[in-house]
């Protein structure tokens, strides 16, 4: 089985190299046979990579200790789930998994668009195959199927920190996001090469971009959730270089998803969107380069190796080739301006792009700065949380406020009458600011809560308008809201994402500005207090799992009349020489009590670190809402006349108007409306 895997990797490399050459040749010369041959080769590469993945998973599951990779990442005590997830637990396997995901995504993208966008899809197939060839080449270099001269009786096992449900989900989600970004990128390159810059590539790849964005975002959230529950330092986001490396492409993709709307509506902005897609893909590749080569000091140091030079070369090729393409087609890309007037929704989207890209740029700069200083012979420096907080705070507040403004502004141009819409949101913001100033006393918190309230007001106004339109059309308030979601899932789904972001923002503000933390050493029976909670230390209890020695502490948590028991543990993994402090967390909507057993003496005295982290649950809940909203935006949009008129409050468009007569009338009205709109434009 392992021999099959090793051979399949090389065969897959040859297949995708051929696929790239055949597709490019076919696309250039217009020979359909070459194009089809390239597509088939891509499918073959995907099949071969599937064989490789199956072979490695088989070896991991059956504990085939002849393989070095299996020995390093599993042991006899590793449960089945983590034997499977060991596939992405270290460099060689995760590169193979990554390549396989890319191959599957590439096949799906090409087969989905080969009929609808034949000219683009041939070039895109070439770009995807070339990208895939590079990653398969890395797999060949990393040798996941390397065998040992003799098979040891037991393996070392997966890094204990990685044996967690969060770590089962976190890497695949991030990989899927990264890998998926290559689809919009490939189509953008295809559009540039073929000069089909009419924006059809944006429409073709919007869903891919949204799905990648969702996957990346989910990966980031799950990673934070894992860190919070596992690492025991009291937080969920440490501005670690590897976290930043995943955050930057997510920020750039966020900018793109907004500016893509402007292009779809106005047919302008093509160059800018191409540049954004190229940037998103490049930062994703750069991020995985930083992560995988261990160039930056990071807690994610379990994925390091010597593939650095190849990777750097690939990043350079991607950046140079892409921006050279954009420069080559620059004259074609300069269309009409994206907005008639800055005080409009398009204008707000432009500023959205400025802010998101500044955010991404600052995070990237902060991540690369230590490297730059060292490369120029400077001392070792860190760029850590103080810098990133100083960046993320003001930019975050500005983005939240802009989110509200954008929703309140109409498309195209805003007259003075629009100001009326601002009254309630502004009132809400002032009220929140005043309350926050009196009770919470921190300038940053005041600004944050004011921005959140303003944006919340703006979005509620939009939902209210949809509900009222339903009432006016005689369908009732709730039905009106539902109609709005069904007729324009992208718009209202997007608003739902915004609401989720607001909840996350409240959670982030609370859990960063009002952390309380205490370190105490107590003997059994002694009590201490943190905030409004009283803790009674009940003593230690020793135990063992097959792989670790466990010391469990008993902490009684008292608040008024209620009593709960927290059991933070300290695990020692002899084989790894690793000590892991697993926190005990008691979570409520108000705050999390987060207790870590820090150290203990033979006489039973123990040192605890206890955090009170306010509103952390809001972060997870808000992220769930945002994810739900994103799924809604992926829902197929109904563009039939009936739904359009239902939203417009047209009485003839109510349910049951299926009969031809009314339907025809509705279509006529719609045509008239469309014609009117075109006249105005």
């Amino acid at each position, binding site marked *: 089985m392992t021999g099959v895997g090793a051979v399949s990797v090389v065969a897959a490399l040859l297949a995708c190299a051929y696929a790239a050459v055949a597709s490019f040749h076919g696309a250039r010369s217009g020979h359909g046979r070459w194009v089809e041959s390239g597509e088939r080769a891509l499918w073959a590469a995907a099949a071969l990579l599937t064989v490789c993945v199956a072979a490695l998973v088989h070896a991991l599951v059956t504990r085939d200790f002849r393989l070095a990779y299996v020995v390093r990442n599993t042991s006899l005590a590793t449960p089945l789930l983590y034997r499977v997830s060991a596939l992405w637990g270290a460099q060689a396997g995760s590169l193979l998994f990554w390549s396989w995901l890319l191959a599957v995504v590439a096949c799906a993208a090409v087969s989905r668009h080969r009929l609808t966008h034949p000219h683009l899809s041939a070039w895109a197939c070439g770009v995807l195959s070339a990208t895939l060839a590079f990653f398969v080449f890395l797999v060949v270099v990393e040798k996941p199927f390397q065998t040992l001269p003799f098979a040891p009786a037991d393996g070392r096992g997966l890094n204990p920190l990685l044996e967690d449900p969060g770590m089962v989900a976190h890497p695949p989600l991030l990989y899927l996001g990264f890998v998926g970004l290559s689809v919009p990128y490939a189509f953008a390159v295809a559009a540039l090469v073929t000069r089909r810059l009419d924006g059809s590539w944006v429409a073709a790849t919007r869903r891919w971009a949204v799905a990648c964005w969702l996957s990346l975002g989910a990966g980031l959230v799950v990673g934070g959730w894992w860190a919070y529950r596992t690492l025991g*330092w009291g937080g969920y986001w440490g501005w670690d270089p590897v976290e930043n490396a995943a955050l930057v492409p997510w920020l750039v993709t966020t900018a793109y998803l907004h500016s893509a709307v402007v292009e779809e509506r106005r047919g302008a902005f093509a160059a800018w969107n191409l540049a954004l897609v190229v940037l998103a893909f490049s930062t994703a590749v750069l991020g995985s380069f930083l992560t995988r080569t261990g160039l930056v000091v990071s807690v994610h140091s379990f994925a390091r190796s010597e593939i650095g030079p190849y990777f750097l070369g690939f990043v350079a090729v991607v950046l140079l080739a892409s921006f050279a393409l954009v420069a080559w087609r620059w004259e074609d890309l300069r269309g009409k301006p994206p907005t008639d007037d800055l005080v409009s929704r398009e204008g707000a989207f432009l*500023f959205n792009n*400025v802010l998101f890209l500044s955010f991404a740029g600052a995070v990237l700069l902060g991540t690369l*700065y230590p490297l730059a200083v060292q490369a120029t012979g400077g001392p070792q420096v860190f760029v*850590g949380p103080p810098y990133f907080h100083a960046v993320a705070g003001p930019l975050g507040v500005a983005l939240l406020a802009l989110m509200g403004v954008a929703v309140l502004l109409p*498309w*195209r141009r805003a007259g003075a009458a629009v100001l009326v819409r601002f009254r309630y949101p502004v009132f809400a913001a002032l009220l929140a600011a005043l309350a926050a*100033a009196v009770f919470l*006393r921190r300038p940053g918190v005041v600004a944050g809560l004011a921005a959140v309230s303003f944006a919340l007001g703006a979005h509620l106004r939009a939902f209210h308008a949809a509900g009222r339109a339903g009432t006016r059309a005689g369908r009732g308030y709730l039905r009106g809201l539902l109609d709005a979601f069904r007729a324009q899932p992208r718009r209202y789904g997007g608003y739902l994402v915004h609401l989720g972001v607001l909840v996350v923002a409240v959670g982030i503000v609370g859990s960063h500005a009002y952390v309380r933390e205490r370190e105490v050493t107590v003997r059994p029976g002694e009590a201490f207090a943190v905030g409004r909670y009283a803790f009674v230390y009940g003593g230690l209890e020793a135990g063992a799992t097959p792989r670790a020695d466990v010391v469990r502490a008993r902490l009684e948590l008292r608040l008024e009349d209620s009593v709960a028991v927290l059991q933070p543990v300290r695990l020692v993994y002899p084989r790894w020489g690793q000590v892991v402090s697993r926190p005990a967390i008691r979570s409520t909507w108000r705050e999390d009590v987060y207790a870590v057993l820090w150290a203990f003496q033979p006489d039973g005295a123990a040192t605890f670190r206890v955090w009170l982290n306010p509103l952390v649950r809001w972060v997870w809940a808000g992220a769930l809402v945002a994810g739900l909203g994103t799924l809604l935006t992926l829902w197929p949009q109904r563009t039939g006349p009936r739904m359009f008129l239902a939203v*417009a409050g047209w009485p003839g468009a109510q349910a049951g108007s299926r009969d031809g007569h009314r339907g025809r009338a509705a279509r006529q009205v719609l045509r008239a409306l469309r014609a009117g709109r075109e006249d105005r434009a």
Partner: protein
Amino acid sequence: MRAALLAAAVAALCTAAWGSPDLDQRVRAVASQLMCPVCEGRTVADSTSELAAQMRAVIRQRLAQGESEEAVLRYFVDRYGPSVLASPQPAGPGLVLWLAPALLAAGGAGYVVYRFGRRSPWTGSEDGEEDS
């Protein structure tokens, strides 16, 4: 006039209510400015190492003795060198780092206003479309 007075009163109320953070919060504030020297990529506030725990104890002791946050930070920089700081000081090349986000945002916004700020001629009603 009345509005101005009201604003002044609100401002005074805010300043009075602002208050100063307690010792725990000040320790945390200083500790999150320092990098744990023995672990990779964690601040003293977030680190789970023995050394970081000692550094937090030193911070607490010095702050309790009435030293300012800056003085405590200077103490650690003198002992461990400037690489103990969790973010470079805004001086020399570090200044570029600290100014870059503001410059990026301001530059980008300025460019957008310069490039697209002029109203193009457009005939139509003043109110735009509400619908997407």
